[in-house]
């Protein structure tokens, strides 16, 4: 189905030892790859990767890339959808993907947590690495990967269950059944998604009775509950009104303290308000990737400038 090119520069390993204090329980970067490894607790205590200690020892001062995308090509059948994409997402930053409809933003996002596996007849070339390890590694546990790389979809998709069960779904399928643990996780995630105050009195009623904005925040809470390190958001606000949108934006800015976030958006103001870096895609190519400030004030290419100023798209 896919031919993965592993010939990628291994020097690009990240440096994660920057000592940012998390409000969530400490999470270890490399645990997703311990596919055979014991309980969650045990995974968390696993030894830090040597890449990190090595880079800490050498004291290299470079951006800590949590996600690094190298020469990535994507084909739907014969249709070449992504061409030679190279991109690094640093830790605890918000990266916005912008670009006209159909340019491949969702496709790239879905490749990061291998949601494209579900689609028939696709081909992927190049590599996507998370904390230095390829997501296409045949030995990789996809389920563990998805636990560490949460995803929020464009169309909110709450499960037909209670609000509580929605939030703890990821924990339940991971086999955690202790009630107090689940309850604590639910409250923490709902608070982080700025939804707790609105639903704390009806946690056990159906999630389908929520408003569209509440459902979207519920889906964000559901992604947070798994304690991922990366959250991928595909146009999370596309179906929401300005009030709900600003609520979610505020929440994303808070989440940034703990998570690395990649967000696809069609809203230029939103990208400029919340993101640290912005990637502009056009017809399957990554045209420009730089700090948001730079992209919005002084872009390198004409296409970017035109798109941002609304002259096409």
């Amino acid at each position, binding site marked *: 189905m896919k031919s993965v090119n592993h010939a990628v520069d291994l020097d690009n390993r990240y440096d994660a030892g920057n000592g940012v204090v998390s409000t969530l329980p400490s999470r270890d970067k490399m645990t997703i790859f311990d596919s055979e490894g014991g309980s969650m607790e045990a995974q968390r205590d696993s030894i830090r990767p040597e890449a990190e200690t090595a880079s800490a020892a050498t004291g290299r001062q470079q951006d800590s890339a949590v996600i690094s995308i190298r020469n990535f090509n994507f084909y739907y059948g014969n249709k070449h959808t992504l061409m030679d994409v190279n991109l690094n997402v640093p830790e605890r930053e918000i990266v916005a993907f912008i670009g006209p409809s159909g340019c491949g933003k969702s496709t790239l996002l879905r490749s990061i947590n291998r949601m494209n596996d579900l689609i028939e007849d696709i081909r992927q070339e190049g590599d996507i690495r998370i904390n230095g390890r390829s997501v296409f590694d045949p030995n990789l546990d996809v389920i563990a990967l998805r636990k560490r790389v949460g995803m929020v979809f464009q169309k909110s*998709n709450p*499960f037909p269950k209670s609000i509580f069960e929605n939030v703890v*779904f990821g924990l339940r399928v991971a086999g955690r059944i202790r009630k107090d643990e689940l309850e604590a996780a639910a409250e923490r995630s709902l608070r982080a998604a700025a939804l707790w105050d609105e639903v704390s009195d009806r946690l056990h009623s159906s999630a389908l009775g929520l408003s569209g904005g509440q459902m979207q925040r519920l889906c964000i809470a*559901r992604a947070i509950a*798994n304690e991922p390190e990366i959250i991928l958001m595909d146009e999370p606000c596309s179906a929401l009104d300005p009030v709900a949108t600003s609520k979610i934006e505020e929440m994303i800015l808070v989440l940034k303290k703990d998570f690395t976030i990649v967000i696809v958006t069609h809203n230029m103001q939103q990208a400029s308000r919340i993101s640290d870096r912005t990637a502009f895609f056009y017809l399957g190519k990554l045209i420009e990737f730089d700090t948001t400030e730079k992209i919005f004030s002084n872009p390198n290419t004409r296409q970017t400038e035109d798109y941002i100023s609304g002259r096409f798209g």
Partner: protein
Amino acid sequence: MARKSKVDTFSSGAPAGDALVWLSSLGLAVGLFMITMILAVIIWQGLTAFWPREVAEVTVRADSEFTINGAQTFSGEIVHYKTRQDYTKDNKTEVEELQLYVGNRDVYGFSFFYVDVDDIIKIEKPADIMSIEREEYGKAIARPVSLHIKGETSVSADSLEFDDRLRALMDTVAERRDEIHDIEKVEIGRINRKMESIRLSRRRMEREGHTDSEKYRKLVDADAGLQGDYETLAAEAGALRDLQFEHELEVMLLTGEVRRMPLGKLINYRYPNQLRVIDKCVAFAHNMVSFILNDPREANTEGGIFPAIFGTFVMTIFMSLLVTPFGVVSAIYLSEYAKPGLMVRMVRIAVNNLAGVPSIVFGVFGLGFFVYFVGASIDQLFFSDTLPTPTFGTGGMLWASFTLALMTVPVVIVATEEGLLAVPRGMREGGLACGASKWQCIQRIVLPAAAPGILTGMVLAMARGAGEVAPLMLVGVVKLAPTLPLNTTWPYFHFEQKFMHLGFHIYDLGFQSPDSEAAKPMVFATALLLIILVVAMNLVAIYVRERLRRKYAVSAV
């Protein structure tokens, strides 16, 4: 000009559409009309079977050929008037005739009698005619003469105390009948089962040559003890039975014969012409309840149909329990796991065509595979002691349910697949993105969301299975089953036993009974009950489905 042509297109489009609408609504109307008619007929005929009819005393002309045993006066319940083609007379071809239920089959040899209306000179409804329900020979319709009480002089029907005495004696007789039934069916039945198991153990030991062991002697003793118990009980039942014949009711038929009937043979009596509307309603309810709750009598043409209702119910439930998991698992594999392609498409076509195979073919398959192959193998392996009497190697509840489950599995598969397809893709992706495996996703998200579809399949399967008769005749339904498939004897479920079924009961009453005219009301009543049972079971399933649907309502966003 341009404007006009525009109008034309509009006006020419509308009638065509109207015609189609009319045609389709006509189709629906015809369908609904026919369904309503058949339901109305069944309900009306089924309910009137329980309504007590008045008894007419009919007198015919002196030269009439319509006499019973030479008598020109006779009585019977008026069934209906109808016309008959008469070919013997030249001028008149249509004759109106009256159908009477005259009862007294033991005396007359028939229970229905037809009289030409032209020959009748008088119809009266005397109040003193008694209609007596009996254990045998259908009803007796006659005038009471006297009550012969053992050890007393007889009580004349004219005396004031006659009715009270008769009523009281009938009550004791009914109680005693229950007692006899208890002894013969329950207690003696239990002893028989014990003796049977001892017989089997003894046979095993004899075959293995342990006849001189301590255990064998114990068995012999136990057998003898049981034999003693049996004889005591049998004697007790015999004594009670004799008591049933102590008192007698003497009646005179309207045709003149005088008869004495032991009270033990009588079940119930009424004066049908004295009943007020309220009494008739009570009698109606009583008839209906006893029809639902009683065992059949007299080759099923009298009494109730409880075993058939129960058999149908248990079989349908059991079949649904078998077919649903099987169908759901198949559907999950087909639509979630199997790689779409020629193979899957062929399987799907095959499954759909399976639904069109005549049910008798499934019956033959069930007989050949389940009964003769699986059942006989089970007998060889586990019940070899009772051979050549088969245990599982003969038709029974279990094999009937399996056969019907096989027959209805396509329905469940198709409905479940539709339910699975209706679950939005986003929901599955959401589950996977949370770190659930594919199976966890299916189990925790897709299946609950598809539950209403699954239940729809179950409803359809139940409706089809409950009404099926032909295959059951091959794999386990009988005219009269001695015990219920689910009863108080260990191990409570007797799924290897044969059972009764409403659908087969209808066939049996309508086409196999010695007096199909007498059984006609029963046929309709049974059909009505079958419909009610199926509808009731479906309503329960639909209620559950609606609850699930509300619980797992798929988001409208």
